[in-house]
């Protein structure tokens, strides 16, 4: 460690301490400065180019996961089947040994996997920045909540209906907004989720406002009613597998390749004769479908919906999952969703500091792996 480096760390620590002082108060700011200094020195010492720890940040294990993921999707048929079979067995057998709390966390992760894969169609494949994706999730959830409490319609009928309704809304929103490019689209979709949230909160006669809708019917087959956490775990597992299969086929289809062409260069795609407008609307609709289905499942699982679950923040979390995992990469997006659901659970011991660390972790993960954990698309600085 050179003297200059030590000086820089000291300067950074004092700078951050002075910045924090008015908000933290005196003794805490001093402690903070000292700890930043110590951590900074350790960091500089440990990340020297000739130390093996540096390689950890180049993430060979992630590379391995990526290879495995690719292998599962594209490898030779026979070993691929064995691998998929083994993974499937783990997914089916492990939950038998888990407690209800863990099962609920995994079920939640399952919901987010559907959402993130759906958003991945819009953002990862077609390259459209949608910040209001959770509005489609809300449509699915409230649709089933209303159909179930008012007309007693079954979960299984609501599942495709929720997908259809969300797709229809996706088309409607797409027709209005997709003429806008880039970040204008982002802000309009942001506005859309705000409007949806406000309407859910204020349209008392239908949505019962902030109190939400209670007593939504549980899914049932014949006389068997889904009631235990493990039932829902298996149900979302099936939905996840269907989603993964469908999204994977879609991304390798003619349409999927057309989306990627639009993502890379819209003008070029258009001049090759693609109907980019229709393709973009299709991406919105097909992405929204999965959010609608996830919404119906959400309502069936918790038997309760309220506007609190459908906020801009929720949209942002789903987007973070997609970007964190690696835009456009299916194994990456699944890993991103798992990470962002399980990370707060791991941080539960820190109580109040949980969200502080969560925010810092988002920044840190972007700084160390800006292309995402399993980066899918090529680096485009343009």
């Amino acid at each position, binding site marked *: 460690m050179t003297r200059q480096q030590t000086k820089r760390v000291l300067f950074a620590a004092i700078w951050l301490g002075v910045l924090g002082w008015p*908000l933290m108060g005196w003794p805490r700011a001093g402690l903070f400065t000292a700890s930043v200094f110590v951590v900074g020195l350790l960091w500089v010492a440990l990340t020297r180019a000739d130390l093996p720890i540096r390689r950890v940040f180049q993430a060979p294990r992630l590379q391995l996961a990526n290879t495995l993921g690719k292998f599962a999707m594209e490898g030779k048929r026979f070993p691929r089947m064995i691998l998929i079979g083994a993974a499937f067995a783990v997914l089916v057998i492990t939950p038998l040994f888990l407690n209800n709390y863990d099962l609920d966390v995994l079920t939640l992760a399952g919901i987010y996997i559907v959402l993130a894969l759906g958003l991945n169609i819009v953002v990862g494949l077609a390259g459209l920045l949608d910040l209001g994706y959770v509005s489609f999730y809300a449509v699915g959830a409230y649709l089933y909540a209303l159909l179930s409490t008012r007309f007693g319609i079954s979960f299984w009928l609501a599942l495709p209906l929720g997908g259809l309704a969300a797709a229809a809304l996706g088309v409607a929103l797409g027709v209005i907004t997709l003429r806008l490019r880039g*970040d204008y689209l982002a802000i309009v979709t942001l506005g*859309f989720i705000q409007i949806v949230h406000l*309407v859910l909160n204020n349209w008392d006669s239908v949505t019962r406002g902030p109190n939400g809708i209670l007593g939504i019917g549980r899914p049932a087959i014949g006389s068997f009613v889904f009631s235990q956490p493990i039932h829902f775990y298996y149900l979302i597992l099936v939905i996840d597998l269907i989603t993964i299969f469908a999204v994977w086929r879609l991304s390798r289809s003619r349409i999927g390749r057309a989306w990627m062409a639009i993502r890379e260069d819209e003008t070029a795609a258009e001049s090759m004769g693609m109907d980019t407008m229709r393709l973009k609307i299709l991406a919105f609709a097909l992405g929204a479908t999965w959010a609608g289905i996830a919404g119906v499942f959400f309502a069936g699982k918790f038997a309760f919906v309220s506007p609190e679950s459908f906020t801009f923040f929720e949209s942002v979390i789903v987007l973070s999952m997609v*970007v964190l995992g690696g835009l456009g990469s299916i194994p990456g997006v699944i890993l991103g969703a798992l990470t962002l659901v399980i990370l707060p659970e791991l941080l539960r011991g820190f109580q109040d500091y949980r969200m502080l660390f969560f*925010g810092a972790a988002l920044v840190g993960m972007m700084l160390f792996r*800006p292309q995402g954990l399993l980066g899918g698309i090529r680096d485009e600085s343009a």
Partner: protein
Amino acid sequence: MLLQQLVNGVTLGAVYALIALGYTMVYGILELINFAHGEIYMIGAYLGIIFLGIFTQWGLTVDHLLLSLAMVFVLSALYCGAYGFTLEKIAYRPLRHVHRLAPLISAIGMSIFLQNYVMLTQGSADKVFPHILLSGGIVLMGTPISYLQIFILLTSISLMIGLQLFVNRTRLGKAIRATAQDQKMASLLGISIDLVISVTFIIGSVLAASAGVMVAMYYGLVNFSIGYVAGIKAFTAAVLGGIGNILGAMLGGFVLGLVESLGASYLSSEYKDVFAFLILIVVLIFRPTGLLGERLPEKV
């Protein structure tokens, strides 16, 4: 009644405009939606209360009220400038040449971090801004206008004029405009892009901090979550006016403030936020680049 609502709307709009300027300037140069900008505004409001508290302890506010008030503004603005500078350096600078979504997620992470940082250090309860300042007002055509509203309007307008002069008349302002137009060309001509970006963040944060202190004085209450809503509104204002356009952000802020205030009093107060976003969507459908935005040719 109408005049009263107009005055309220313009006051609110001035605050939105000040925050929107930070969004629009950063966007103009980096094409980045700086989601943490709203938190800088919130920190500015907190710092205002904290510094005023310190001055009150020292007994400065009794004899030199205006002086200590000015000091509160200057100190909060300087501090927030430092926050903005540091924010850019830590969270955005390393990601400048990566795909566009990485800095966006980093910004979201920073926003969550700063919000919780303030919540943990200052508590989650509302903080009260002491109501000793600028009470009273004048009556104009039967409408009471408080001194505070006049103060907010005058301060915001002078800051905006100052910004216009800085951007249009100084060397550094010229460098900022050049960088916004063509970063590569500007750097070839010897403009330090790093410096320009840092200055942009500092200016945006200073404006947001002033808005924060004024809002704290106006409403008398501050909470760690105010940055989120104000941030979304101000960004809406920036887009409404045409993002990247400084005059557009000012116009957008005032339009948004008026729409909200009039909509809340004449139509429905529960749906006042809906009007703001509906206006935004309608404007963008008919003028996809905002009210004052230029239509740029697509880069091929």
